[in-house]
């Protein structure tokens, strides 16, 4: 059963056995044997990135868009330390990735060798789990276990650190089914708790589903069951940034995204509800606002696969530990078998409240004059691309929030954004990973010029592999979100929030061999976007927008859901008080 092979060969063999089709990586001294094996096979495609951070974000993009585990391969020392931001990003957003790092040979570990670093030590707090393998005979089991750990339970990033002598030496290869593991998180929820939730749903007068990335991580079945549950109960549903797409934006019961830059109706409904059903979300501080004023009158249920998410910041009344799809299936069965009851009359009144809040039309804006409003640019992008098989990545900042507000997502895995860590520079490499997973799809990275510059080198990767990713830059020549906070919080003293000496993005695109498009006139925007879509290859779209536009609506830090700032007319002068100023 066991076959003898070199450690380097084992790495490639294990990746093949685990069904990996693409690896994002960057070679270096400590991974040369693995690269040599990759050279001699055709099962796995290797994508050469331009920076290790790009490799990890690309693996994340691939994982987020396909639901499969992403793989990155980097060398020791700087290769590993450059991967740290991507690992932390994947940990915060619960994205399954396996990162293979080379290490100096075992006999040199600890000697401050060239390109040595304590990779497992550095990555311990930013991975779900990691391994340092010191014998070739013991290499195959963690390679297989890595995929199991990354994808089961609450998904996350894992690292396997492989010294160079372990890659060269020959050992026994173990197949996946021979590998024992004790890691087996509970997926079925407690049926008593589920019944309690079903009962609460029968009598609730003002219920709301509050869904998050856990629904998407649970797989397509979870989104399907969620849609069934929402349709059958008629309850309103909102979602976090991470959960967009688990319920369609065109769906009847959709009240929009909630949170700091969420919709007025969604936040008001969260504040006033009497039954909050949290499905795979984690009461993040961008969602809750002021904790002691968070949805004060509601009974709260929380479905989560991670016990440490339950009761961490918000005390809940009905905790259900389990996988979203498993729990929703049981919940639907229990609720149906009890007679499919809801408090229809009261829920009708609840909807009329919500519809009143909707009339505020919190996303309204006026496009006038010759300067493109970022909201207008995204509305047009939505209108012109929604018919396509479309995947959207973003960087981090104002453009990210506007994209969440003005683009509609009909299905899960269509929206790739750095939520928890808020990593500027995520979107460009992520779009490459997405396009690798979906070669024929329209992949757009909605970016700000400052974020995009952080990992712009990956345009070279897009060119090398003919990946027609569209980089749609909303260029306000500002670090927009920083500038907005300085306006609200620091007396309009715009300290270092200008992007000075920006490159000419069209020339930059051409330098890479890509297409550059610049647009500064609202009347030309549609044609320019169509040109971007129809161009067969990577495009850098420089959309010059209003420089001092603020992102609204907004719950100022330290405020409650029902204290939103609504728009340009809002009184922002004293919006954030001393207590809120220390919050990020």
């Amino acid at each position, binding site marked *: 059963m066991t076959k003898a092979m070199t450690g380097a060969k084992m790495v490639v063999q294990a990746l093949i056995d685990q069904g990996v089709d693409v690896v994002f990586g960057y070679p270096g001294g400590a991974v040369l044997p693995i690269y040599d094996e990759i050279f001699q096979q055709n099962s796995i495609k290797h994508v050469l990135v331009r920076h290790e951070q790009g490799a990890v974000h690309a693996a994340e993009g691939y994982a987020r868009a396909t639901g499969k585990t992403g793989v990155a391969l980097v060398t020791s020392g700087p290769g590993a330390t450059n991967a740290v931001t991507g690992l932390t990003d994947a940990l915060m957003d619960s994205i399954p990735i396996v990162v293979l790092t080379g290490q100096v040979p075992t006999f040199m570990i600890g000697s401050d060798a060239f390109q040595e670093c304590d990779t497992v030590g550095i990555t311990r707090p930013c991975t779900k789990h990691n391994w340092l393998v010191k014998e070739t005979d013991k290499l195959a089991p963690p390679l297989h276990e890595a995929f199991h750990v990354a994808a089961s339970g609450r998904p996350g990033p894992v690292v396997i650190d492989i010294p160079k002598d372990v890659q060269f030496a020959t050992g026994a290869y173990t197949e996946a089914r021979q590998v024992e593991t*004790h890691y087996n998180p509970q997926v079925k929820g407690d049926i008593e708790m589920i019944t309690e939730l079903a009962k609460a749903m029968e009598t609730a007068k003002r219920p709301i589903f509050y869904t998050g990335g856990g629904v998407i991580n649970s797989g397509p079945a979870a989104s399907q069951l969620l849609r069934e549950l929402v349709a059958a109960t008629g309850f309103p549903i909102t979602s976090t940034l991470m959960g967009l797409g688990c319920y369609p934006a065109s769906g009847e019961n959709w009240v929009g995204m909630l949170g700091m830059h969420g919709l007025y109706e969604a936040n008001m409904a969260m504040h006033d509800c009497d039954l909050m059903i949290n499905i795979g979300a984690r009461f993040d501080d961008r969602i809750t606002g002021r904790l002691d004023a968070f949805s004060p009158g509601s009974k709260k249920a929380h479905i989560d696969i991670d016990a*440490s998410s339950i009761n961490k910041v918000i005390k809940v009344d009905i905790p259900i530990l389990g996988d979203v799809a498993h729990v929703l299936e049981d919940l639907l069965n229990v609720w149906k078998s009890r007679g499919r009851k809801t408090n229809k009359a009261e829920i009708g009144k609840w909807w009329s409240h919500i519809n009143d809040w909707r009339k505020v039309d919190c996303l309204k804006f006026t496009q006038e004059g010759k300067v493109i409003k970022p909201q207008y640019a995204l509305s047009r992008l939505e209108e012109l691309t929604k018919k396509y098989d479309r995947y959207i990545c973003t960087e981090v900042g104002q453009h990210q929030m506007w994209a969440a507000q003005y683009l509609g997502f009909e299905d899960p895995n269509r929206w790739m954004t750095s939520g928890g860590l808020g990593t500027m520079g995520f979107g460009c490499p992520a779009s490459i990973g997405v396009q690798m997973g979906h070669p024929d799809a329209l992949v757009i990275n909605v970016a700000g010029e400052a974020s995009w510059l952080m990992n712009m080198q990956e345009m070279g990767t897009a060119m090398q592999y003919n990946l027609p990713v569209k980089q749609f830059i909303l260029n306000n020549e500002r670090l927009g979100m920083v500038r907005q906070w300085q306006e609200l919080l620091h007396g309009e003293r715009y300290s270092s929030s200008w992007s000075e000496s920006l490159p000419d993005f069209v020339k930059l695109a051409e330098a890479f061999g890509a297409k550059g498009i610049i647009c500064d006139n609202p009347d030309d925007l549609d044609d320019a976007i169509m040109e971007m879509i129809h161009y067969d290859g990577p495009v850098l779209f420089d959309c010059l927008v209003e420089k001092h536009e603020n992102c609204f609506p907004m719950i100022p830090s330290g405020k409650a859901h029902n204290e939103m700032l609504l728009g340009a007319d809002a009184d922002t002068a004293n919006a954030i008080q001393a207590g809120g100023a220390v919050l990020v």
Partner: protein
Amino acid sequence: MSPLKIKKGSTSHSAYNLRPSFSDKVERHTLAILVENEPGVLSRVIGLFAGRGYNIDSLTVAEVDHLGHRSRITIVTSGTPQIIVQIKAQLGRIVDVHSVHDLTVEGASVERELALFKVTGTGDHRIEAIRLADIFRANVVDSTLESFVFEITGTSEKIDAFAELMQPLGLQEIARTGVAALSRGSLA
């Protein structure tokens, strides 16, 4: 993804109640954590405490099952009930952790600590020291004409009390092991 063999009965879910009533009072809890004795496992556990700002009052660790490659970590920690629940849930998330038991809430338990005391002195102080050691059932494990090394086992409180009494009698140095604890009764 090709499936792995999952050991029968193994699960990383914890049996503690997720619906406790929370107060703001700081409580002291003794946790028994059974872990896979892998390199770095202790670092994972204490890194969790450091990274999330939890307290460690006492920590002991040793391999307890050489064949099964298991170590037992006993941690005495303090925090509000909500923090204690978080600590247990966070520990349960670590892949190398097999089980987390809160001995403070899961029925009665026994706790013992071993300590070595170096006490120097002559005359009355020396006589008083050995008389008190006798009362506390401490053994003399080393002696010179002007010093003793006492070995004492007991609860942490007993060792604290002994330290207080030895202070004026020439206490020079203390080495303590930290708490080891087991639940009472026949069940593991």
